């Protein structure tokens, strides 16, 4: 493949700046004291501290998983600081006007204005900066509809009954090494509750930013859609360019009660490391939702960042007639590695799942799809359709597909399709011969490849995602 393409896929990361704020960052390393410190910072009730400490005990004897198709030196948690927050957040600002202008400027620079009159119409935003949530917009407007959208640290105090009932109900304590670690040290994240029968009047979104050096981000998100409710939620993430790898180990839990629907979209653009593979975020994330009767969870992700991505947004289809969907675009370039996919666990009758995964590899990167479809013995009439497509740009990258299928029901229908293709010289030349420049041509070809996934994103973000791919693939655009 031509050198021209190679040049285009080696581009700068645009969100890589550092915000100069005075932060309180605790010494690196993990211990019971660190957990007590975090819990005290958030003024947590005793049950939550104990919940954390139990997880810590469990985690201590767990092993870091090594089954993924990823190659990286072991993470030294003694070099990671588990809590960092801007000092200006010490006395929680009551409104945006009291938030440090430096922080507001950071988000303006990232294209996420926080003042309500400026933000995208109809999108409420929660902003998580290192270990704390610094602002949530449109809270009052949402409250009118009975919707709760706030930092999880606040929900612990304001809605203890919901938090106590559902926190950790989807991802159990010992689920995996990173989820157990998160349970012990999680700092902040978003909390959403949609009451019975309510259609959330606007899109909700959380924007995660890691700023401080040598700091990990361990956020925890909990979304509860009560019976018959509907919500669409989006998260975005960026981080500065640094030579050291930084750890991001989040947990997201979705609870979708009878007849409810949750649409969860991610545009992940953590710092991917430089063209030599130095630096970048290690993104080890556990995302899972549980569907009750007639409910639906739809995960859509566009993953362009991180040095390493390890995440498998999953759905437990517990209720009869429930539906799980996973739409994914994962782009890797330079030395990025991604091992991502989903798990669809069919427990209920007539449960359906759809998996559409699009992997794009460029440079020397490695991109793997890993997916599990499990049909339980009582999943009568269950059905899955999986499609995994890989697109290679250049000849030094790789794409892998690891499908796991476990069917314990004779009637279950499981379909799996996989393709691998290249951005061919023929396609590129056809575009050039029609006057379309290389940059535009590649982005057009890649966007075409991703179309099935992009159409699942909320409209404003579909445009954003397309642009993000363009920026990730090209030199001058954006």
């Amino acid at each position, binding site marked *: 493949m*031509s050198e021209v393409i190679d040049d285009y896929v080696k581009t700068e990361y645009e969100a890589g700046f550092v915000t100069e704020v005075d932060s309180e960052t605790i010494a690196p390393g993990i211990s019971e004291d660190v957990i007590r410190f975090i819990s005290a910072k958030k003024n947590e009730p005793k049950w939550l501290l104990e919940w954390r400490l139990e997880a810590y005990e469990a985690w201590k004897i767990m092993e870091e998983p090594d089954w993924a198709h990823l190659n990286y030196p072991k993470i030294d948690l003694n070099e990671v600081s588990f809590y960092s927050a801007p000092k200006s957040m010490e006395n929680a600002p009551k409104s945006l006007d009291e938030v440090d202008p430096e922080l507001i400027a950071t988000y303006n620079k990232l294209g996420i204005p926080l003042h309500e009159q400026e933000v995208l119409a109809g999108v409420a935003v929660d902003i998580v900066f290192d270990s704390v949530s610094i602002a949530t917009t449109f809270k009052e407007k949402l409250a009118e509809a009975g919707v709760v959208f706030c930092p999880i640290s606040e929900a612990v105090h304001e809605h203890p009954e919901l938090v106590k009932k559902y926190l950790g109900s989807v991802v159990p304590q010992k689920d995996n090494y990173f989820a157990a670690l998160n349970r012990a040290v999680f700092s902040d994240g978003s909390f959403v509750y949609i009451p019975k029968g309510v259609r959330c009047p606007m899109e909700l979104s959380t924007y995660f930013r890691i700023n401080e050096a040598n700091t990990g981000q361990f956020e925890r998100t909990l979304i509860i859609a009560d019976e018959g409710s509907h919500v669409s939620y989006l998260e975005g993430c960026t981080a500065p360019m640094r030579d050291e790898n930084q750890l991001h180990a989040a947990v997201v839990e979705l609870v979708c009660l009878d007849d409810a629907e949750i649409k969860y979209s991610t545009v992940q653009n953590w710092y991917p490391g430089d063209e030599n593979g130095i630096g970048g975020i290690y993104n080890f994330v556990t995302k899972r939702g549980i569907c009750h009767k007639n409910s639906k969870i739809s995960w859509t992700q566009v993953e362009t960042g991180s040095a390493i991505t390890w995440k498998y947004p999953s759905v437990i289809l517990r209720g009869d007639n429930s539906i799980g969907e996973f739409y994914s675009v994962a782009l890797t370039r330079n030395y990025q590695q991604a091992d991502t996919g989903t798990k669809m666990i069919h427990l209920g009758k007539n449960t359906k799942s759809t998996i559409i995964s699009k992997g794009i590899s460029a440079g020397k990167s490695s991109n793997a799809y890993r997916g599990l479809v499990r049909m339980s013995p009582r999943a009568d009439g269950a059905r899955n359709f999986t499609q995994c497509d890989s697109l290679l740009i250049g000849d030094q990258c790789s794409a892998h597909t690891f499908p796991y299928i476990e069917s314990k029901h004779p009637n279950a229908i499981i379909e799996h399709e996989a393709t691998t293709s290249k951005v*061919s*010289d*023929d*396609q590129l*030349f*056809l*575009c*050039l*011969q*029609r*006057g*379309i*420049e*290389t940059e*535009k041509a590649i982005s*057009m*070809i890649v*966007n*075409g*490849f*991703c*179309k*099935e996934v992009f159409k699942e994103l909320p409209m404003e973000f579909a445009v954003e995602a397309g642009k993000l791919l363009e920026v990730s693939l090209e030199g001058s655009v954006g």
Partner: protein
Amino acid sequence: MLSIDNLQANVEDKNILKGLSLEIKPGEIHAIMGPNGSGKSTLGYVLSGREGYEVTGGTATLNGDNLFDLEADERAKKGLFLAFQYPVEIPGVSNMEFLKASVDTVREYQGKDALDTVSFMKLAREKCNAVNLDPHFLKRGVNEGFSGGEKKRNEIMQMMLLEPSLCILDETDSGLDIDALQVVADGVNACRDPNRSFIIVTHYQRLLDYIVPDKVHVLSDGKIIKSGGKELARELEKKGYSWIEKA
């Protein structure tokens, strides 16, 4: 219009074009015929600037511009159009999106007004009808699942939209049945214009029954070894190429 002088070109270090000269005046149609491997398709790719086709000598100018100083996309914007022998598919990119991008960039380069979406759609539908292509093809992926004949008609439709000054048709007739051939030929004839020239690369005389050339050239081993009027094509059909090659 087009002036090629002593053109030499390599593909993967193998010398394919060995001193080809050709002069085409505005409004003329030139047919290039010749046996397999004589360099017919290479000529189209070299002129349009495909990567991997290395010019080792000679010149080619289009309307006074030295083609080899220009990138492939610039040559297209200057009005050079190549209709492909095997048009490639671009899944997920709609024909409409592709054509709009193409027409926009070419028009902008040529200093023409941009077409708004509505007028573009109208124009595109018109051109589809002209080549007997159902306008719903505009919504499908570029060449995605098109039959051989539909792909070729799609190429001619693009040619009509872009209004190039030089059109190179690379074996556009291959794989077409007689009805499709007629449609393609009608499309080309409808594009004839005193300011537009054509190079028609073909194996068979058949196409030239429908598109009557001003000149016919025989390409053999990277050189034009014989030129003549349209009657030369008929002679070739009867006698094959060997009588010229031996001569």
